[in-house]
């Protein structure tokens, strides 16, 4: 069944009203996702990746945000849809695994109650059926002695176990699309590997589409079909995973990869840091948002914002002087380097 379009986001803008003016957290993002596929959204803190995923879910506060553009799930427009409409989608169609397993569970409710709640509300299961389903879910996500854990409170579980419970809750009503926002951040490496394996396996079994939001290029490198790189509220590069790593065109993507230490590199390998820091989203620069930190920036970059263009099938980037061998401008500018 894969290949059917599940999610279409077009020119999505999200801005927050703050006392210092309007903060433009997401500035015209478009993306699409087919059934059964995995999309990685990569960016550093403040890049807008979490706001984007929450806007798709419809979880942002209405009073203080302005959201324009279009988010279509299965052809139906869901951006700014009323909550009672969204509630029909949540859990049964789109579900989310949140970033922080320590605080995302209700601390005063037993694990069992938190898993059976969506089953009773959305699938109208009886108490007994819900418990049976919940126990099998706990088993599927690899929780030992599920009968005991069913009665436990979140504080009695480790971080990895809590994240498994979060995944069980998200999967309870068999969603078609799973949004995972930093699902392994804060977990130990051995547990991270277990959780990523679990997500891949469940996704395969259920033919579920997944959006994996992370700051870690390592997490998305082997587990996604396509990657979107975000910087300061913009998509700066988008490509199939293999293409992105092999022929990245946007200097920011390259900088992000080069500043990541690798196990494969010898010890004391000098990292290429990105100097400076991301722009203030209250006063974004007029040109390319990365131009103040870009080693290849030319005058044009500071003046005009490059559009996101599709240069090869499936590979788009927003850069005036992309990193291609044929481009003579792609050498470090001595003035700004």
């Amino acid at each position: 069944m894969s290949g059917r379009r599940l999610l279409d986001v077009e020119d999505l803008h999200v801005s927050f009203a703050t006392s210092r003016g309007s903060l433009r957290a997401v500035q015209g993002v478009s993306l699409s996702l087919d059934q059964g596929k995995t999309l990685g959204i990569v960016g550093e803190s403040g890049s807008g990746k979490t706001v984007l995923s929450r806007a798709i879910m419809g979880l942002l506060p209405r009073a203080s945000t302005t959201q324009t553009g279009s988010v279509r799930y299965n052809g139906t427009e869901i951006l700014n849809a009323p909550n009672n409409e969204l509630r029909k989608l949540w859990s049964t169609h789109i579900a989310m695994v949140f970033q922080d397993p320590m605080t995302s569970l209700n601390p005063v409710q037993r694990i069992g109650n938190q898993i059976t709640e969506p089953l009773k509300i959305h699938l109208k299961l009886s108490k007994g059926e819900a418990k049976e389903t919940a126990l099998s879910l706990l088993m599927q996500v690899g929780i030992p002695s599920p009968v005991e854990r069913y009665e436990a409170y979140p504080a009695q579980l480790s971080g990895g176990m809590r994240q498994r419970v979060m995944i069980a809750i998200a999967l309870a009503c068999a969603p078609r699309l799973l949004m995972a926002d930093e699902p392994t951040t804060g977990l130990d490496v051995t547990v991270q590997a277990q959780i990523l394996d679990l997500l891949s396996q469940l996704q395969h079994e259920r033919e579920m589409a997944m959006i994996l939001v992370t700051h870690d290029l390592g997490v998305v490198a082997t587990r996604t079909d396509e990657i979107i790189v975000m910087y300061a509220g913009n998509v700066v590069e988008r490509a199939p995973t293999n293409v992105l790593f092999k022929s990245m065109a946007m200097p920011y993507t390259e900088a992000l990869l080069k500043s990541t230490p690798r196990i494969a590199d010898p010890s004391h390998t000098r990292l290429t840091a990105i100097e400076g820091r991301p722009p203030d989203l209250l006063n974004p620069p007029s040109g390319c948002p990365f131009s103040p930190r870009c080693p290849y920036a030319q005058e044009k970059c500071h003046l005009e914002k490059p559009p996101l263009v599709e240069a090869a099938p499936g590979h788009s980037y927003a850069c005036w002087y992309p990193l291609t061998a044929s481009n003579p401008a792609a050498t470090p500018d001595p003035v700004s380097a």
Partner: protein
Amino acid sequence: MTDTTLDSATVSTDPLLSVEDLHVSFGRGNATVQAVAGITFALRQGETLGLVGESGCGKSTTGRAIVQVEKATSGKITFGDTELTSLSRGDLRTLRTQVQMIFQDPISSLNPRRRVIDIVSEPLTIWKIGSKEERVETSRAMLDQVGIDPYVNGSRRPREFSGGQCQRISIARALVLKPKLLVCDEIVSALDVSVQAQILNLLQDLKQQYNLTILFIAHDLAVVKNVSDRVAVMYLGRLCEIAPSDLLYETPAHHYTAALLASAVEPDPEAPRTSAALTGEPPSPINPPSGCRFRTRCPRAEARCAEEVPEMREIGPSHQVACHFPLGS
């Protein structure tokens, strides 16, 4: 720009710090947690030793015991010629000028109500080093070195800075007294990768300049490999393996080290896809397994592992492992 040769040249063979059979326990009776259960290692003058392990393995407690924030239950910690665990409070205080620590959370480890320049000069004020003008001058120079402009930013308060900048300020504060030993506890784990690279490079530069000896505690295997000359792996309160960085990552001898490396993700789609090498989670440190503490999750465990605690032994040049059946033997 990498300077491994310079690194090894400044590493001498005399230990600056040696830790012998260190135990740190919390609580009492049936609920005693053995956070650190008998570890022995030495830090040579001028080297960076990485201490890596998962949460709860006792790596932070080890660091805190070395700077004497946590009291050792038993064992010896020798810094230079001084045995730290039996020092009086006054002597210990003097010693703190030579041993400094940098913490994980850059923002909460700085006093939010004080100006940055005062935060950095406070150690000098406490030790009455120089006149007031000289202290300000020294602190300004130190801030400048960590990449914070003292004239523009010196009068600002910590909340006006990003996490990376706060970590720079913490580094300036730790180095202003020119310590010999620096204990870094997860100093980059709260930072974005681009900022993390800035801080790691800065630390490397300052290490050369001040001839620092560093104990670098972290959970990120790639980060630890990048900064360390040698790496020690910890599991459930005990050391599994110590070796020079490149050697340890290339030919791990302990099954736990190998499992850790197999679980790590690399930003490379061609890299073999990692899959969980270990199932389950570490057992409780209140009631650790008998014998080798890793045996309950070890693929190679035999009856001997439950009966006999494996001692650290040399299996190659400066490569030590605590395992009855090490890999590659």
